[in-house]
């Protein structure tokens, strides 16, 4: 009998050679399952071999090591993967099946608790489903943290012959990859979450907007959608309930701004991805002017569990007004990068130092950017802040999509501030002046600072100018792109002013 071997098909695993490793196992006669990644990315390619004791993992496997893995003699065995302390200490809800199941198999999904949420939802009225989601306290995981139940209630109560569900899978923030990994590793969860959403708000058509930088995810999702149609989880009269729901996968085209929900809607409509002024809100006038529930991937992927186990069970996790779990993504200059899913309230220190194990370079941590390119830079003194929406906002930062990017002490924070402005100037949709012009002026001002500091000149007047500019961008921009770009810039100036005043030592 040939051994059953799991070699992740996840893009991150593939980026360090998993495809070649999978081919080598197949050539050796093993039965290979291309699972998702467990999220311990520093161990990829992490190969698992099915044994009587459980699935035993082997880290950083190379094609030439296949025989050693199959004979159990490979030196980098990490033991039974489910018992690995990095995983065991987590509370995986959205990621419970990622890396475990075969993402291509509907049967495997069902065997691991899949479709239970949808079955229960279909036994409830739309209003009851919305109530469950409201009771769960689930908030939008894209970054804004808006209560999902309230959004759905608005769509449900807006009268229209045609409504839509739209999933924002334009995960463009550097340092975030949870949406990608959940869809590559467990795509049926998103299909199930969207189908539940369709029932809850009265939508008959749904769109997933995936960024084009994620070809693995596009393929996994399209395969899952096709399988869901084949097995009656999408299409007409789903599971005999009378619900009809068609799900379309659409691909973005390399514009960061399309992660902003109204830009995404315009892009889905086949237009330039320009931000819309609000109101009207998408829940009332979204796609093609019709009521649309727009949610992030992780929000929708939490929904099946909320319905399967009840809103109260989900609300038991978390802290304050941040209920449930958050999927943190440890990235950048970090020793143990990957996915850490925990109830809200864990400290940044625990994530960076304990889970992350410090920097990859082995040098001291100097800064951490939380929440993507529009998030604040936090110095080590601020690492004890609990990771929830309110506590972070109070400390002048934001959770965003849960990305945590670590920098060591060689980072030049004036350069990072400049990059924040540069990124905004490149990716701005151009509709509003504070963002379009402000970011360009911001780059120029920081360039002047960088030139001046080299010569030891006074930069205080430029810093005042940047502060003014940031205020204009914060208050005058239509969306978070221009509105939040000041966050990384001003946090860098606040905590690392010395980087703006003098040239750092060359490292």
């Amino acid at each position, binding site marked *: 009998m040939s051994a059953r071997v799991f070699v992740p098909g996840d893009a991150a695993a593939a980026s360090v050679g998993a495809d070649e490793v999978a081919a080598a196992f197949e050539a050796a006669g093993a039965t290979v399952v291309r699972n998702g990644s467990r999220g311990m990315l520093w161990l990829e390619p992490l190969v698992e071999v099915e044994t009587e004791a459980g699935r035993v993992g082997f880290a950083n496997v190379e094609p030439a090591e296949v025989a050693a893995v199959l004979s159990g003699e490979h030196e980098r065995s990490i033991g039974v993967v489910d018992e690995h302390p990095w995983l065991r200490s987590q509370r995986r809800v959205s990621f419970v099946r990622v890396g475990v199941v075969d993402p291509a198999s509907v049967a495997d999904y069902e065997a691991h608790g899949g479709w239970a949420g949808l079955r229960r939802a279909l036994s409830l009225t739309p209003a009851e489903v919305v109530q469950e989601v409201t009771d769960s306290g689930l908030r939008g995981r894209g970054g804004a943290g808006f209560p999902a139940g309230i959004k759905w209630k608005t769509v449900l109560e807006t009268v229209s012959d045609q409504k839509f569900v739209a999933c924002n899978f334009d995960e463009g923030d550097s340092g975030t990859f949870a949406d990608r990994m959940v869809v590559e590793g467990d795509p049926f969860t998103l299909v199930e979450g969207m189908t539940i959403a369709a029932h809850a708000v009265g939508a008959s058509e749904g769109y997933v907007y995936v960024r084009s930088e*994620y070809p693995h995810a596009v393929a996994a999702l399209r395969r899952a959608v096709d399988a869901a149609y084949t097995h009656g989880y999408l299409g007409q009269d789903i599971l005999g309930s009378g619900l009809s729901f068609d799900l379309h996968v659409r691909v973005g085209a390399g514009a960061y701004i399309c992660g902003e929900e109204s830009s995404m809607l315009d892009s889905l409509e086949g*237009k330039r991805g320009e931000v819309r002024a609000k109101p009207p809100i998408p829940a009332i006038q979204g796609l093609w002017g019709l009521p649309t529930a727009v949610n992030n991937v992780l929000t929708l992927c939490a929904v099946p569990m909320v319905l399967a186990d009840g809103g109260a069970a989900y609300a038991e996790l978390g802290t304050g007004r941040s209920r449930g779990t958050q999927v943190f993504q440890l*990235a950048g200059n970090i020793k143990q990068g990957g996915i850490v899913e925990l109830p809200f309230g864990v400290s940044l220190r625990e994530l960076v130092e304990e889970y992350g194990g410090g920097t990859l370079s082995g040098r001291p941590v100097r800064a951490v950017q939380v929440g993507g390119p529009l998030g604040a830079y936090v110095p080590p003194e601020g690492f004890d802040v609990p990771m929830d929406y309110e506590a972070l906002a109070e400390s002048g930062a934001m959770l965003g999509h849960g990305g945590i990017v670590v920098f060591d002490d060689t980072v030049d924070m004036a350069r990072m501030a400049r990059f924040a402005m540069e990124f905004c100037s490149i990716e701005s949709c151009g509709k509003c002046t504070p963002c379009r012009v402000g970011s360009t002026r911001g780059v120029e001002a920081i360039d002047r600072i960088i030139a001046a500091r080299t010569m030891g000149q006074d930069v205080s007047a430029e810093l005042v100018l940047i502060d003014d500019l940031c205020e204009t961008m914060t208050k005058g921009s239509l969306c978070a792109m221009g509105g939040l770009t000041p966050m990384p810039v001003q946090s860098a100036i606040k905590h690392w002013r010395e980087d703006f005043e003098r040239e750092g030592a060359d490292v």
Partner: protein
Amino acid sequence: MTTVPTTDRVALVRAIATQHLADRGALMPVLHDVVEELGHVSREDVEAIADVLNLSVAEVHGVVTFYKDFRTEPPAVHAVALCRGEACQSVGAEALYAETCDRAGDLGADVEVDEVFCLGNCALGPSGTLDGRLHGRLSRERIATLTEGWR
């Protein structure tokens, strides 16, 4: 990718656009298919697409030029795209990008080097794609090894 004679090209673009006529918001899928099939979107393609989808040429042109993926010039034979996102910068992506741009000619005769902002591989940076394939933990040496066949 092969060079398609102009008249055949127009017919092919019209056929692609026609396939998507029933889709809501068909323009983006049409443009993706045109780039996939023909490598880029030409001026004539824009006119053909506008005609089939009943849009103005200006509308289609506006969309083509808004999105980076809808290139208007034919691609080079080989392509390198390196991530310049913050996570990759924290492990040296800026220097790698600058150096790779400077030395593009060393990688092959017809190689284009471009920047990209995040490939979702932020724990294994510096990340990039070589002819569309994702790679992590890139360095100058690794890029040289992976592109050996280009020279």
